[in-house]
Structure formats: C-alpha cells, structure tokens
C-alpha cells in the first residue's frame, strides 16, 4: 500500500468519513459541470428534494455540443438548444457560476478551469467527464464521474469511493526535437496497455515531466484514463506556482505565500512508498501515431503496422478487429497513409502551446489538395491569445479553418463530424470505432505538430522532416 505520496496526503485531508460499506466519503474541492452529464443530475436532485450544498464550489461551462462555426442562438440543432437551456436554467436556479458562450471564459471544461486558476494543487476535483484527469497536472487528485455521482457531489460535495493504488511512472531525460508531451503519453499507453492503469492513480515523475510546461503536463495527465487510470498527477513545483501566480482565482497577497507553503507540503515525500514503479527513458520516445481502434495501438511514425505474431496473445483479437476496421495491412508503414481530415484541438491538445507548435509546421506551407483541416481553440481565451499572436492568420494563410472554442470533432456531438469512411489525423484522445461521428470513420491520434504535418503533406508524415 502506498504511503507518503501526494495521493495519500490529499486523500487523507479530504476524507470525511468511512461509510458502512467500507468506502471512503471524500470531499470534492472543485466540481466542474457541463451540458451533457449534468441535466439528469439536477433532475435527480429535484426528484429527491435536495439542494446544492456548496454552490460556490461548482463551476459550469458548455463545450461538448457547441457548434464551432455558427454559434448564434437558438442553435440549429433543437436538442443541443434544449441542453443549453437546461444548463442555463439549472445554474441560475442553483446560483452556480456559469461561463456561457461569449462570456470570454467559455471553453472546454478542462481548458478553462486551469487557465482561470480554479485548478490548484492539493485539491480533489471531479467532473462528469473522463478527461478530468487533466487537472492532475497541478498536483490535484482529479477524476471523471458519472451522472449519479454528479448528483452526489451537488447534494453533498462528497463522493463514495474506494482508495486507489499508486503507480509511479518515471520518465527521465530530454525529449528529442519533434517529440512532444502527446508522444510521451501515447508511448506510455502503448507500453502499459489500455487496462494497465485500472485500480491505480498514476504519479508522473522524473526529469522529463519536471522540464515540461504546465500545458504539456496537462496533455500527459489528460490521457491517464486512456491507459485505464482514473487519475494521474504531477507533483507541484516552481513551474506550477509560476503558472498559477496572478490567475483569476489564485490566492493573492499573504494567502499566496501560505498557499505555496501548503502546496509544497503535499508533495510526495522523498521516501514515499508506491504500489508499483515503472521507468522509461525519454530518448526511446519517437513521434507516435495510433494505427488501430484503441489508444494503446500506437507505433512510432517510422514503424510499420504490427503483425499479429509480434503481439501478445491477449492483444491479437483486438488487433484483428483493428486491421479490418482501419483497412490497414499488418507490416506496412504507417507513414504515407493518406489523410482526409485534420483536426487540431480538444482538451488534450487545444491550448496555446499546442496551437503554436502546429502553426510552426503550417507556416509558409499549404494544406494538401483534398484535405479538410481545421483548428479549434480550447477556449475563448486561447482563441483570443492565439489571435493576438497572429496564429489564426498563419493557419488561415495555410488553408486551415479557424473556429470557435469547443470539443468539436473529438467526440462529434456537434456539427463537426467525419463522413463515411474518412480517415482523420487528430490531436484528440480517442480513436474508438465511430468516435468522430461516422460509424465507419477512422482516427489516427498524434501530436498537434504531427497533425499539421499530415495536413500539409496529405499523408501521415514524420514531423521531424518539416522542422
């Protein structure tokens, strides 16, 4: 059993009681809600005659269903409009802060909370969205929940949970040029598998993560769930404190100094005990692309689609399903695979630094003929900052569409969808069958720079050749 880790310390500090089942009643410091998984929770509260216990500890926005081209109300999709009205009414009736479209603060929930300084070290954070693990980048314990649990947090600001084990994933060394945080997490999932993290919280440690910016750490923590781990975190350090300083909801003045001292105190101890430790060398990590239908089916861009005999028996069945669905032949290079659609955005890679990396590749080049390429900033603030730097003009000049903030084609609950058997190069997080809105659509996950490289060449390309 782990001891002295950040996870243990934060868990203990937030423990309210032990329930008769043996589970822990855990206090949730920050609750984030959006339009998809909250309306039913508010309905359940009403059915039970319950009130929101700590309305000031829940923050709402809209991201999944919002169109990224025309955001005029009412939305053309009646059902999306109904969901918008539900969250507007529910937040108003329960005095919950709501960042609506046009507020200047709207965006993907996992982009807006960090950028406003709502996400802080040592917190417990829950949201009805599996990518809540993103917030672990700050040294918070953050995880996704379902709608019945959203109800529980609204009603009690707590959840009934069983404690997780803690695995330290250490990556050491400097990443090579053209290798990004996205490649690090795709590499980890490839090596540990999509079920490797079940039952664990992941602590990302080592010099590679220490050298990363907060946005890069968010990319890594975001995809903890794709490896089966409900939450992942990085211990807070000077990079964390520098990012948070002076943000809207960061403590100020005397409280800032108290906060930094407290944040340092919840850092994993030097002699902390872990349930498991895994070590990787950054030098082994290449630009990585998924070829299949699970995020664990990744290869270096220079590799070939794996042959069944190179896989473990347990992985062959899902590989066979993937060859068929993706229409990719085992043993053929992934590089050169023609691409129809290029999507840059999402809670994984829709932040300013992601857009900068992609723009660097797009600059002075042209989107290949027949390729649809578009960039969706993660939030209204990201959009504004990117425009202030002229990134929108670089993308537009290269033939990329420049959109409004939202989840867009990561999950295609809005008008942005693949058509038929189109194949996308996507900076998002899931390559599941049908994920991007077409029941036969195909997704190759990669870093934003790799997506930009695919856009300008029309095929899967090693971004290192364009840098």
């Amino acid at each position, binding site marked *: 059993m782990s001891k002295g880790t950040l996870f243990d310390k934060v868990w203990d500090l937030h423990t309210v009681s032990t329930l008769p089942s043996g589970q822990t009643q855990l206090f949730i410091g920050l609750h984030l809600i959006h339009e998809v998984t909250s309306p039913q929770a508010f309905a359940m509260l009403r059915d039970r005659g319950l009130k929101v216990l700590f309305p000031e500890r829940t923050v709402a926005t809209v991201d999944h269903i919002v169109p990224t081209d025309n955001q005029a109300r009412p939305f053309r999709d009646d059902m999306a409009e109904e969901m918008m009205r539900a969250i507007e009414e529910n937040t108003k009736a329960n005095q919950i802060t709501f960042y609506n479209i046009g507020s200047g603060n709207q965006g993907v929930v996992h982009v807006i909370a960090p950028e406003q300084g709502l996400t802080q070290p040592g917190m417990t954070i829950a949201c009805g969205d*599996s990518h809540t693990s993103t917030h672990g980048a700050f040294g918070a314990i953050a995880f996704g929940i379902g709608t019945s649990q959203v109800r529980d947090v609204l009603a009690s*600001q707590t959840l009934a949970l069983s404690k997780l084990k803690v695995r330290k994933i250490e990556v050491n060394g400097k990443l090579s040029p053209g290798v990004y945080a996205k490649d690090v997490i795709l590499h980890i999932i490839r090596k540990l598998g999509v079920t490797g993290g079940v039952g664990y919280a992941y602590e990302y440690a080592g010099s590679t993560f220490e050298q990363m910016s907060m946005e890069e750490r968010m990319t890594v923590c975001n995809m903890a769930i794709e490896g089966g781990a409900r939450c992942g975190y990085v211990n807070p350090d000077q990079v964390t404190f520098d990012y948070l300083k002076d943000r809207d909801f960061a403590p100020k003045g005397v409280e800032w100094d108290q906060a930094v001292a407290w944040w340092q105190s919840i850092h994993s101890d030097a002699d902390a005990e872990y349930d498991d430790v895994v070590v990787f060398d950054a030098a082994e990590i290449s630009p990585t692309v998924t070829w299949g239908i699970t995020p664990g089916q990744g290869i270096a861009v220079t590799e070939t689609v794996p042959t069944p005999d190179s896989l473990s028996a347990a992985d062959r069945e899902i590989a066979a399903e993937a060859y068929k669905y993706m229409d990719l032949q085992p043993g053929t290079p992934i590089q050169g695979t023609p691409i129809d659609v290029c999507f840059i955005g999402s809670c994984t890679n829709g932040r300013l630094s992601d857009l900068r990396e992609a723009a660097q590749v797009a600059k002075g080049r042209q989107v290949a003929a027949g390729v649809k390429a578009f960039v969706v900033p993660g939030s209204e603030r990201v959009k504004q900052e990117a425009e202030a730097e002229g990134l929108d003009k670089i993308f537009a000049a290269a033939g990329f569409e420049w959109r409004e903030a939202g989840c867009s084609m990561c999950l295609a609950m809005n008008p942005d969808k693949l058509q038929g058997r189109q194949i996308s190069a996507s900076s998002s997080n899931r390559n599941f069958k049908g994920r991007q809105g077409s029941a036969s659509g195909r997704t190759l996950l990669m870093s934003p720079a790799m997506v930009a490289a695919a856009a300008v060449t029309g095929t899967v390309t090693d971004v290192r050749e364009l840098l």
Partner: protein
Amino acid sequence: MSQVKSVVGRGIPLMGNDIDTDRIIPARFLRCVTFDGLGAQVFADDRTQLNGQHPFDQPQYQGAEILVVNRNFGCGSSREHAPQAIAKWGIKALVGESFAEIFFGNCVAMGIPCVTANPTDLQQLQDWLAANPQTAIELNLETLQVNFGDANIPVTMGGGARNMFLSGTWDACGQLVAQAEQIRQTASKLPYVAWSRASSV
C-alpha cells in the same frame, strides 16, 4: 433502498474486448436532458453494422437480464448514458473479465452489479448461453457464483461494492447527505476552501 443479493434471469453473451462507451451509446444520442429512450439506442452503430445479427437484436436473447462480456468493458468516456442505455434495454447485472473503473462506479450507483470472472470460465458461460438462451441463470452475490444449468463459476467483486449491494446501500446519496456537519468540518480544515471560492454566493 433495496438489497441486491442475487439476480436471476436469462443471459446474453456479447463477445469482444475493449468495448468502449462510445460504442455502447454513440455520442449523438447524448443530445438529451433525460435518460429516457436510451434503451432503444444501445449499441446503435454496432447493431446497424451487424444487420440483425447483434446479440441485442437476436430473437433468442430478447428479454435477457444478465449481460456476459469480456475484457475492459465500458472503457472510455464517463457517460452514465452507457449503463443507463444497457439498463433501459433490460439488463440488471453484468459478468465480465474486467470493467473500466468509471463504468463500474456508474453501475454501482445505479444498483447494477458488475462481477468479474476468469477468461476460461467466461468462455464456458458464453458458450453455454449461446446453447441455452432461454434458460435462466443466477448471479449470486452472497456465494459469489454464477449458476447455470448444472454448472457454476466463481466470480469476484470489490468488497466495498459488494457490501453496498448486499446491505442495500448502493445508492450512497442519502448516506453522503446525512453527514452535512462532518462535511463542513472537513471543508473548514482545507486551506484552499477559504481562498479559492468560485463565486461569492
């Protein structure tokens, strides 16, 4: 609040590893403000593709109540719409090699037990169901067994979750709310609660 000690009903086998919640309920069906109606849409795209041959469409499995799956069932998105859709189709319990954590937690909160078994035993159970789709089986949470025909296989479930079903406390909401005073005390000891208020409400 109701105790769940055993679930008796006909079984339905669904083969395949890593069946994610996007496949259980594609995102376009999440455009709704209630869970009503999700039962008809469960596995929508997989069913269309299999053109009547998906177990959820095959006549012999209509009315089944125990779903038997393979590895990492329910991975991906946290959408409770997935177990809600399965439940609204008529499923009351799941047996599988492993379940994704958020999916499992959602099922507990809905009163639907998910138990795990080893792959060899699951294969035996899935084969048996294919041959005996009309015969009821029993998931017994007290003995931790699935009983079918003259056979049975052992199953496992985390202690906390199992206790919640056996004692009828799987809907934790009431217990959580009852601790309001203790919740406030815990909150008052967390330094950030004072400085990180999202609003002045």
